Structures are given as structure tokens and as C-alpha cells.
């Protein structure tokens, strides 16, 4: 993909983000932060690429370990983020009739 296509996706996603986030009810702003935290850990994709790569010289081995460490950190966030969001959202209940 060339740079301009990527940039287009990015700019469009910023607009989508703007409208979607304004439509989030203020009551759910804390879960919003928790879930954005979890999804920003999609950076695990980069970590997995590094961790799965075969070593090319000394840099490759270090790179692999950095990748594996990043996988651990991103996984904490992914599992922790989604779980804590689910826990919070389960608390929001309507008036019992």
C-alpha cells in the first residue's frame, strides 16, 4: 500500500473516531478509556512480527526478545483491558421495575 492510501485511511479514521466518540454517553467515559486502552494494544501485531522473525545477525536476536517482551505487555493490556471493561459494563443496570 502506498503512503497516500495509508494516510487516507488514517484521516478518515480520525473523522470516524471524532463522531463515534462524541456519541459515547458521558456515563460510559471510564469504560471508553478502558476499552480504547485494550484496542490500542493492537500494537501486539508489530510485537508478534518481531517475535516470529528469524534472526538476522545479532540485531535479529535482540529484536526477537524485544518483540516477545512487547507481546507480554500488550497481552496484559488486551486481556486486562477487555476484562475490566466487561466487568464495569456489567454493573450498569436499569431501574428494576
Amino acid at each position, binding site marked *: 500500500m502506498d503512503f497516500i492510501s495509508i494516510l487516507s485511511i488514517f484521516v478518515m479514521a480520525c473523522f*470516524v473516531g471524532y463522531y463515534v466518540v462524541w456519541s459515547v454517553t458521558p456515563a460510559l*467515559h471510564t469504560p*471508553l478509556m478502558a476499552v480504547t486502552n485494550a484496542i490500542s494494544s493492537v*500494537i501486539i*501485531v508489530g510485537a508478534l512480527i*518481531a*517475535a516470529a522473525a528469524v534472526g538476522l545477525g545479532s540485531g535479529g536476536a535482540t529484536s526477537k526478545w524485544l518483540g516477545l517482551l512487547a507481546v507480554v505487555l500488550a497481552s496484559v493490556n488486551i486481556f486486562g483491558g477487555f476484562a475490566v471493561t466487561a466487568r*464495569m459494563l456489567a454493573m450498569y*443496570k436499569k431501574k428494576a421495575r
Partner: protein
Amino acid sequence: MHEGLPVNSWAAFAYLIAGACFILALRGLSSPASSQRGNRLGIVGMAIAVVTTLVTHVPPMQAVPGLDFAGGFNVDAVTVIEILVAIAIGAAIGLTTARKIAMTDMPQLVAAFHSLVGMAAVLVAGAAFLNPGAFGIAADGVIFAQSRIEMGLGVAIGAITFSGSVIAFLKLNGNMGGKPIMLPGRHVINLGVLAGILGLIAWFTQDQSPWIFWTVTGLSFAIGFLLIIPIGGADMPVVVSMLNSYSGWAAAAMGFTLHNTAMIITGALVGSSGAILSYIMCRAMNRSFISVIAGGFGGDTAGGAAAAATDRPWKRGSAEDAAFLMQQAEQVIIVPGYGMAVAQAQHVLREMGDKLKEHGVRVKYAIHPVAGRMPGHMNVLLAEANVPYDEVFELEDINSEFAQTDVAFVIGANDVTNPAAKTDKSSPIYGMPVLDVEKAKTVLFVKRSMGGVGYAGVDNDVFYMDNTMMLLADAKKMVEEIVKSLD
């Protein structure tokens, strides 16, 4: 233009689906009813992204010369096990933390999670720098100039997110005082360091030397630290939102490096989400973003203005008085603040609400945007105490109702009810939107003592009004006594 990663088009399509799932996950948060489905879609999106990466990168990226991909399913078992162990360790830590964390500690948890995203971004950028071939961003070990900019920005934003979040965590967790720490000449230092980072990234496009990359990383760790230490406790909701935004931009920068649509879409979503939340928090405090960044506001110590004012006459009430007044009321609006959370009074407060409803009183809750330590914090605490979310209202939705309300019950909040924000131009909180509690027929104000003032260090005229009754006690004890008197 370079080729980017040799990903096939179905993988690119899968990443796009993952990105779309993330958009829908945030969309779900427009109402509590759809929010849980949204969260599940987020999990689905993440699973798609992770599985796609594993499938496309573990076997075929093993570009061992002479080993043909078509020749069999050459999964490197060791690599797979290593990765699965790494994920399992992360999952165990993450799930345990998520299960154990108290809802009052949510701001710290979010700050800690932000720091992990920042660190992960730094590590990924470092890994990409050390082994650019694996990421498809180099030819013969020479990294493409454009990738160097993206990588440089990614590592810089990631490092700032990390060290800034660590400081935010320490301040929110109480390991570090909320008082702003002001270094002399800090603006000059900060601007100098920022200029240094940008200059080095520009140089990095010409010279791929490792020292430039690692200096950018080091300076960025330093600036994240320097930027957050002068910011006081009261501004933490803005800081947490801002770091949320940074963690998104870091992911987006790495998405540019890897040409990965899931990362770019997510980064843009999270980046705008954090930016909007920062804006909402700033507006709720009537502070400009720049002045928050400049720091120095809202420490533990109060200004001198408040001390002299406590000689003014005020009325003290008992739990029985409060119970009697509220029982007679048609409508009671409860205004909770962070002090309620500190006293852990939310559960007994909900009990009080239930008792009042039994007496035929209409009970509503009014939430100021900065009532907690992070956006929406108070709503979560009330939800945890089983307060139905349709009884909880935002400032703009309920403010007009105070004039027709018999009792405003303020518990653990102060600055957000201060009418000086509307009338006194010399007040440090002038212009901040506040809850009009003084318009209610009676104000019951639960407070530990008359001495203390809110974060802004200003006295509150509501204490001294004829229709105000001060209930001086620990918030939880006071509400417990009121509940007893309501029987």
C-alpha cells in the same frame, strides 16, 4: 514509494475487518444497553488481528533460504511456543488485575495500562529498528527514509506515553504527592528537549546510526517525565485522557511503519477519543489545554484566601434533621464527588436512596464531569453500588431542576457546587460550569470539617447560606446514621 510488507490481500482484508470491529466497539458505548455487545466485538477484532498476524508471519515469514513455503506446513514450533507463553503470561497478569482492582482505583489502573501501551510501542519500534528486514521496511539493511520518520515518531510518542503514565500512576496511586513539582526554567528545558527530539528524528532520515535512535528514545522518556511532574492532582483527569490520546497516536505511528490498517484505524480512534475526553475535561474545569500542560495548578496545599473566611456563621445539622428533611421532600438530588468514593460511601448512599424512594421521594443523582479522578469515574462507582443508570444525570441535563428541588444532598463534592464560579471574577474557578445546588430549597452538605477546602483552594459560599445545613462527619458514617433515622 516502497513495497511494504509482503502481506497477501486477504490478510489486509482481515486487518480491515478488525479495524471495523474496533469502530463498532466504541459505537456500542453510545448506550449502556449496547455496550456489552460492543466490548465483545472489540475482543473479536483483536482476535482477528492476532490470528491473522500469527498465520501470515509464523510460517511463511520463516524465509529460510532453500525452504519452500509450498513444501509443507513449516510452523516453527519453538517460535509458536515462545509466543503463546508470552501471551499466557500477559493474559494471567491482565485478567488477575482486572478481576481484583477496586473501582475507586480505576484511574491508576488506566494510567498503568497506558504506560504498557507506550512501552510496547517503544519495544516494537526498537525491534523494527534492529531487524528492519522482518518488518519489510528495509532494503539491504538500509531502512527507508519514510519508515525512519514513522519509527522515530512512534518511539518518541511511545516513550512519552510510558514515562508520563508512570508519573500519572504514581500521583494517582498516592506514591507521589499530588502537589505540582515545579522545576525552574522548565518551559525552556521542555521546549529544548522537544526541539532536540524533532531535530534528531529529522537527522535520523539521513543517518541510520543507532545512537540517534536511542537518543530520541532516551530524550522522549525524559520529556514524558518532565511534562507530567508539574501537573497537579486536580488536573489528573485531563492528564489521563491526554495520555490515552498519546497511546493511540503511538499505535497509529507504528501502524504507518507496518502499513497495517488495523493499527492505523485503532490509533486514530483512540487518539481522537483521548483528545475529545481531554477537551471535555478542560471545558468542565474552564481551563485551557495549554494551561493544564503548563502545570502548577491544584496541589495539596490550599491558597490563603480560604483560611480567614471560616468565621462566617453557618448552620450545623444532625443526621436526624437530614433524614426528616429528605423524608418530607418531593425530590432529592444527590451530588456525589470524589470524597464520597474516598469514604467508600457509595453503597450506603444507594441504600439511603432506596429508603427515600420507599417514602415516596423522587431521587436523582447529578454528576459533574470532573467529579471523579477520570472521565465518567463517578458513574462507574454509582453503577457498582447498584444505582440504576437512568437515575444518574449529567450536569447539563439536570442543572435546571435544582430550582424545583426540595433537597440537594452534596456528599464529597465541593468546587463543582461553588457559585463563585458564576459570580466572582477573581475566583480561580471563575467560569467553570457548576451544579446550581444553591437554588434548591435546602442544601445538605456532607463534609468532614469546616476547615478544609476543595482542590482549587477556594471557600464555598454555599456553606454559609440560610438554606444550607452542614452535616459535619465522615461521609460514610453520616449516611449510615441518616439511613438509620429513615427507618
